[in-house]
């Protein structure tokens, strides 16, 4: 193994991933606005470019050229750095998710994952926890009660829903016998895990939506109670970066759901071409994303205390029961 394998190729892969994700973020905003518009019988963005396709670019310019305002009473250092932490946490998660099998290029076998590590799924959980600090500390640094409350809520919510999520992942690990994404995908060659783990899927899906603070579970930024939660004091490019983190989280979550429960890049004829594998994954993730947006457009926001109760008193026990049943069944079958 020389330095090309050790450093250069991962670096290139990372760069590709980051660029793609940033682009995907930009057009996710467009897609979401379009879709939500349709759900409520509006058009959505349709001014900039054909079908409003240039709208994200316009938004980016607007954010970049807005005046930089840093309120006087904030903790400046943290206030500036926190959006970065948030988006880094979102991006870094993607490093362990395979988007395809592998292909040959320039005489090297290149796997379609930045690093397929042994404990990949746990890595995802750990990194999601780190990204949280961006929101938490950002809210605190803003020196604003609404921000702080939003930050606290966000943290509590993420910690709460990490538990059922972990339990669902444990069920998967029990069945596949591995925490490596490669193995988990391989285990779904014949049957996607959603068939074997319907309850686990449900638990994971709900927890996932809570993890990424999606409406109707966007407790940290409930406009009618907290103005805009942790991002109240943020504007311009810094707000855009938070926004970016949120959408990237959403994309990553959809890909995680697709990978863990829907068979990942596998599909009919997927073995023919790496490109086809990528397409399968994107299609599956798109379906999940569509559901995310659909839920947002259809269901009103829940109340915070009820939402926490739901997590602790329903989802965690459900996840535990699911894990117990899974363990017993696996022990009996194996």
């Amino acid at each position, binding site marked *: 193994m020389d330095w090309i394998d050790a450093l250069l190729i991962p670096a290139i892969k990372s760069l590709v991933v980051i660029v793609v994700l940033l682009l995907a973020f930009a057009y996710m905003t467009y897609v979401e606005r379009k879709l939500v518009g349709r759900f409520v019988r509006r058009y959505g963005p349709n001014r900039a470019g054909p079908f409003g396709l240039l709208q994200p670019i316009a938004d980016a310019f607007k954010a970049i050229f807005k005046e930089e305002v840093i309120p006087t009473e904030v903790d400046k250092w943290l206030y500036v750095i926190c959006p970065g932490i948030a988006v880094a946490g979102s991006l870094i998660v993607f490093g362990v998710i395979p988007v395809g099998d592998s292909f040959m290029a320039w005489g090297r076998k290149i796997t379609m994952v930045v690093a397929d590590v042994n404990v990949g799924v746990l890595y995802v959980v*750990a990194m999601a*926890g780190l990204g949280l600090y961006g929101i938490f500390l950002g809210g605190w640094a803003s*020196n604003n009660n609404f921000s702080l409350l939003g930050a606290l809520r966000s*943290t*509590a919510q993420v910690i709460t829903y990490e538990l059922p999520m972990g339990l669902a992942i444990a069920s998967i690990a029990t069945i596949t016998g591995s925490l490596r994404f490669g193995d988990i995908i391989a285990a779904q060659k014949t049957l996607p895990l959603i068939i074997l783990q319907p309850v686990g899927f449900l638990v994971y899906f709900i927890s996932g939506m809570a993890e990424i603070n999606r409406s109707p579970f966007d407790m940290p930024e409930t406009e009618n109670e907290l103005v805009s939660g942790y991002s109240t004091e943020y504007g311009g490019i810094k707000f855009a970066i938070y926004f970016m983190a949120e959408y990237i989280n959403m994309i990553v979550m959809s890909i995680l759901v697709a990978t863990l429960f829907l068979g990942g890049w596998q599909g009919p004829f997927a073995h023919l071409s790496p490109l086809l594998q990528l397409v399968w994954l994107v299609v599956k993730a798109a379906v999940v994303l569509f559901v995310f947006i659909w839920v947002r457009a259809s269901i009103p926001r829940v109340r915070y205390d009820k939402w926490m109760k739901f997590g602790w008193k329903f989802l965690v026990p459900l996840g535990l029961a699911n894990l117990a049943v899974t363990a017993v069944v696996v022990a009996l079958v194996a």
Partner: protein
Amino acid sequence: MTATPLETVLFIAFGAVAIAGALSVILARHAVYSALGMLVNFVALAAMYIMLSAEFLGIAQLIVYAGAIVVLFLFALMLIGGRRPAEQGRLTGGLAAAGSALVVVFLAEIAYLVMRLTGTAGAKGTVTPDVIAQLGHIQLLGATLLLEYILPFELASVLLLVGIVGAVMLARARRQSRQE
């Protein structure tokens, strides 16, 4: 054990980060920055664990320490006056001086002890990094934990249960006293 130059560089880098984090815990003006320093320290240590072929423990370090414990600390900070200006609290007086001096002596003693170690002495087990890479760290650790150390493992789970109950009781106290 030998290390490649890349590993050496990374060791030194992470070590420096860990020390910087630890120092900022005790030197930071505001407790939130202390917590941040602690977070940095934990993450650096997690990276070192992974490099020392203890991947699972590295990730567990991230999840448990960075993901939960530091968050809990920050929560406690927010609950008891996160908005207050910095606590003026590094210490003054003889106690601190004596303490610092003692710590230096202690460090010197340990350093002397470590340097006096007879190199790579000690029984060599069977779990080499190659074995770990081959069988998987989490699998090995899981087998050891659930076969050889099942009793301590169960005891740890009981301990955690006690922790949960204790935390709930401490949290309930307020609600009751408010009702009174």
